[in-house]
């Protein structure tokens, strides 16, 4: 299953938001990928997430498959909505 989300915090997905994403994703068994501008990366890899260079205003597609996939996507949607706890 997939979900499309927008990056709203000022600095985009830099190191700290990437840490939040990877830490959440690693708690789930489901396979997890993020797609942006034709690049598809393993969402449990901090290097991969950083490589997307997702800036403020950009849109990313989250793909999760397997055990807990829905919960994972819900949790991440909340994280995006909370702007990764930043401004």
């Amino acid at each position, binding site marked *: 299953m997939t979900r499309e989300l927008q990056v709203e915090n000022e*600095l985009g997905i*830099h*190191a700290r938001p*990437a840490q939040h994403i990877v830490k959440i994703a690693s708690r789930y068994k489901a396979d997890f990928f993020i797609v942006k501008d034709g690049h598809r990366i*393993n969402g449990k*890899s*901090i*290097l991969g997430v950083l*490589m997307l260079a997702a800036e403020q205003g950009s849109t990313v597609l989250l793909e999760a498959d397997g055990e807990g996939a829905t919960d994972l996507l819900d949790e991440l949607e909340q994280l995006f909505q909370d702007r990764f706890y930043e401004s």
Partner: protein
Amino acid sequence: MREIRIEGIGVSPGIVIGEVRLHARRRLMVRPRPLQEEQIPGELARFEQAIEKSRKGILKLSQMVRRRLGSDSANIFEAHLLMLEDPMLTGRAREIISQDHMNADFALLSAMSEVQQAFRDVKDDFFLQRLVDLEDVGRRLIESIQSGGEDRGGSHSGPHILIAEDLSPSEAACLDTKSVIGLVTEKGSQTSHTAILCRSVGVPAVVGVPNALEQIKEGEVCILDGNQGLVLVDPDSSTMLEYSARRRVIAGFQRDLDRIRGERACTLDGHEVELSANIELPGELQHLELSGANGIGLFRSEYLFLAADTMPGEETQFREYRRAARAVHPRRLIVRTFDLGGDKQPGGMKFPHEANPFLGWRAIRVSLDRPAMFRTQLRAILRASVEGNVQLMFPMISGVAELRRALTELDKVKAELDAEGVAWNRELKTGIMIEVPSAVLVADQLATMVDFFSIGTNDLTQYTLAVDRNNHTVAHLYQGLHPAVLRGIRMTVEAARRAGIWVGLCGELASDPAALMVLLGLGLDELSLSPVLVPEIKLLVRSLRMEDCRTFTQRVLAMSDADEIHAACDEALRAQFGDLPLWRPGAPRGDNR
């Protein structure tokens, strides 16, 4: 014996003798080594062991940085720890070991270069900076693998003098002061952050030593004289004897300083000047009591997160300001709002590329353009102000309109807190830094709007004389006692007097013994300086007469030549205190004391 004398700029006092380590990064040698099927499990186990060792090393470094700089600065190591578990890095390396039958260090290097290749498409500098972290983690892992699971850790070398080309503020912050007893760098200046940092932690340092990395070899014995800006490589026995004697004189002097620690900084004829501390690291607070400083005259708030990855939130800032306020209570804590930009650019923020960063987007300009960030900081300071001793200061104010904008923001935040029912100190005093020549020229107008001035002589000097203090070609034109700078200080003091507010000085000039008579003579109420230098300056203040300082200052203000003024000040210092082993910032080379 091949004693070599190398001259530089002494930026942090003290004399140390020790072995040299070069801060040149060792080149990694990784060779591909195909493995037999039966060797694979052993190689994988070796790899896991190296990851475990690296994890311990990163945790150790992270704790050290947290202790010294606060938890926000340590955050980047969280990312390093995640990289150790990254499927694209260590995960991929495991694949290469087990499927391609290659050795662990080669497998890791291959995985690293795959990631680097993938990052090639990233155009944004901001994200590219993370490659530095990848290289750091990768290097740590490879070194662990090759050393059979030993991690280089934060430190496992004995006491030594470190020789480096230059250190970034965050590298300097990570210096292990237990093993680094002295520092020599090729680049840097009196006011560079490395210099300020070394002084704050009491590590003797000499900077601006050309070709230091070529002239000095790993393992050689050196005498580092931070007082005179000298490095003596492979000293002969007579030099060693001379320096042992000099260290004993310094030790005796140290006892004199210890005796007056709790005393006030009063001249012989009864004029008191406040000596307070410039603080830039949370860890420095614990040494403050020892320095005998009267409160904190300049709390450089930007250092809370200069090495960090993101801006600290309101709660984090609030806790840090409150901690500092409680540490010096009931003496005052002056928090200066963020002075970002110029050469201070934190990792988590984007700065435009500017041809002249020092004339560009920095300090109060950044704060006014980032109202959310500015208000968060003002809220944190105001909330901490209930401690009663907190004061607020804006940096780089250049005129009335700019100050008005800052004060308007402050009023808005106060109203906001009132609406929320959050307490703040109604008596909160607000001041500004005077460090831009335009502010000096309108100081009379600014003085009616604030409670105090603090003159930042480092920037005031470089802006008044149009000299970039970090540019070696013109650095000699940077003269802290230039007549134009002294006039600027005098104008500011006079404007403050007429408005009935106090005026201090918080630049490096405050810690220069030769400038002391002039600064007292000009009528400054407060001098704020590196805490380790407070005892020395206090001792001098207590042996001077204000009347003599005023007479001397009149004589100096009549001079038109900066060199003449410097010579007169040096002469006066020698006449008064010739026999004391004083530290002089950027002392003229070969100066005999």
